[in-house]
């Protein structure tokens, strides 16, 4: 499974890299737990919302290019061949 990070998620106080390949986990929630364990509280506070049961308001997660709001949110199931992309809320134009 590939996880890609963007914008400040690449900073050293978050993931500190652009991309990792990792052992498959079952859901996005589990992925968040594993990554937060690895990267710390700051990461957790952005990845999850305050209740810990949804994606944080300042974060956008795509699974295979689909925004997880249109899949099954934080409970979206993941497969080994999936690519997960994690962005902060950004804008431009």
């Amino acid at each position: 499974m590939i996880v890609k990070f963007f914008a400040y998620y690449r900073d050293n106080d978050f993931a500190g890299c652009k991309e990792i390949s990792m052992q498959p986990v079952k859901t996005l929630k589990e992925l968040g737990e594993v990554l937060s364990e690895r990267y710390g509280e700051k990461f957790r506070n952005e990845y999850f919302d305050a209740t810990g049961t949804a994606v944080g308001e300042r974060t956008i997660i795509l699974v295979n290019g689909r925004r997880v709001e249109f899949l099954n949110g934080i409970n979206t199931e993941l497969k080994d061949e999936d690519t997960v992309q994690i962005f902060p809320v950004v804008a431009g134009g």
Partner: protein
Amino acid sequence: MKNGYIGTILRVNLSTGSIAKEPLNEKNANDYVGARGLGTKYFCDEVDPRIDAFSPENKLIFMTGPLTGTLATSSGRYNVVCKSPLTGTIEASNSGGHWGPELKFAGYDGIIFEGKSEKPVYLYINDGVVELRDASDLWGMDVFEATHALEEKCGNQFHIATISKAGEEGVLFAGVMNDLHRAAGRGGVGAVMGSKNLKAVAVKGTGSVFVARPQKFFDVCTAARKQLAAHPVTGAGLGQLGTMILVNIVNGVGGFPINNLKDGSFDTYADDISGETLVAKHLIRNKGCYGCSIGCGRRVEIADGEFKSKGEGPEYEAGWSFGGDCGVHDLGAVCKANFLCNQYGIDPITMGATVACAMELFEKGYITEEEVGFPLRFGDATAMVKATEMTCKGEGFGKIMGLGSYRMAEKYGHPELSMSVKKQEMPAYDGRAIQGIGLEYATSNRGGCHVRGYMISPEVLGIPSAMDPLVTEGKAATLKVFQDLTALCDSTGICLFTTFGQGLPEIAAMYREAVGSDESDEDILLKGERIWNLEKKFNQVAGVEKDTLPPRLLRETLPEGPAKGKVSELETMLKEYYEVRGWNADGTVPETKYQELGM
């Protein structure tokens, strides 16, 4: 006046040389707000929509809004209004920087240029002193040369809006550049300026802008500024990362068009030209327009290599047009091409998309190496920059590219390869992967354009809330509100980027306290709808083609990515859109609609 407006319009007849100061039409200002709306109203009242855009009958209007140059959020904006030579539609091209506020400080809400000068001139405005001066020695200069020469002549406190040789020679997508790097970029307003033999407007002012209810205005502006500062996009993201940060996420959803929209995902190359890479490797510092708390502008330097250069930008759209759309993933080349566009005052969206179209024509064998002068293939960074430079300078094949992609492709018998709507190139989002933006392109009153109702906000960024980009449901109704709100925002004189962090309540509040109105939010939004319908009315009389998209988006499916197999479901959305607009099923506007809007 003490209501955000100055109360004076400058009317300059270039044919006779007469300069008149006339009182602002207050009724029109009330009904059409300012900048884009008010400029369009003046234009539509005075100009027959059927005229040739390059005839002296076309007028060129520079107009500010009631919030321009005040403490309102990001209030540095003005619009240039005329009939576009590229699209034949009404054009209101929006620019920031410091020029617009300075015009108000000099004592004018706007300038209406009429006719055509016999010889090159520029307009000198120093408070009450307004003169047409000889610009023969400036003719032929690029934006930077002309700006510096005018600062030398007039004084370095003057703010300069100018065109370059591209505008003088009628490149159909030449813009007006102010404060060196800020552009009223789209629709060829600079070419219209050039057709009038008007090189530049130099302005300096010492006067004031007053608002109707100062304390309340101060309070609502302070609150709006705090709100923007607290928002992750307007408070941090846009300033820190710039607009190029969109490359990866738009590519992520499969909507970053590649190779003249043949493909929809730039695979691993996207990151090479991303905002992250630009910040990490080339950003020198941020720049801000007047009164802006966001500061998304970027001073960028390519320190070495083939594309060694420095300048401002690129913004996301230019990053895409010279990057993904041309299959180029060399960020240095992308920056260099963008800097050339600033220097020569041309629209980088149309420029890059025209090069991309030429690349497809070349690869399909419809144009030859002999005609271009060198092989022009997707992915060739050097050829892309060279093609851009030739167009900027009006050399060789660049003369043909200076017509824009539609006329170029038509000349070679393949107009279907122009990725344009109403002859203006669509920007950096694929209408197949992001359905609502396709509807926006098709219905935009100035042809292919992303800033007339930025559907990317809900469909990709989730602002104010997320909509699924692959479906059509609800897009028409949302787009209508976005288009009306954008028309309002543009017309007040504040920056559209503020709407990532604020909405109608904040904009309406600033407007009310500035002009001294007690209208409801809904009444104020209605002005936006009125402006939209006025633009539409002009286009109808002008005989602009119907709302549609290039055949590629309607018939060729996306070959890969999350939107694989999709085409734009435009017909479905259009039908719904005309309904929510209260228009006829064929997209024309019934008289009753105009009456209902008090037009």
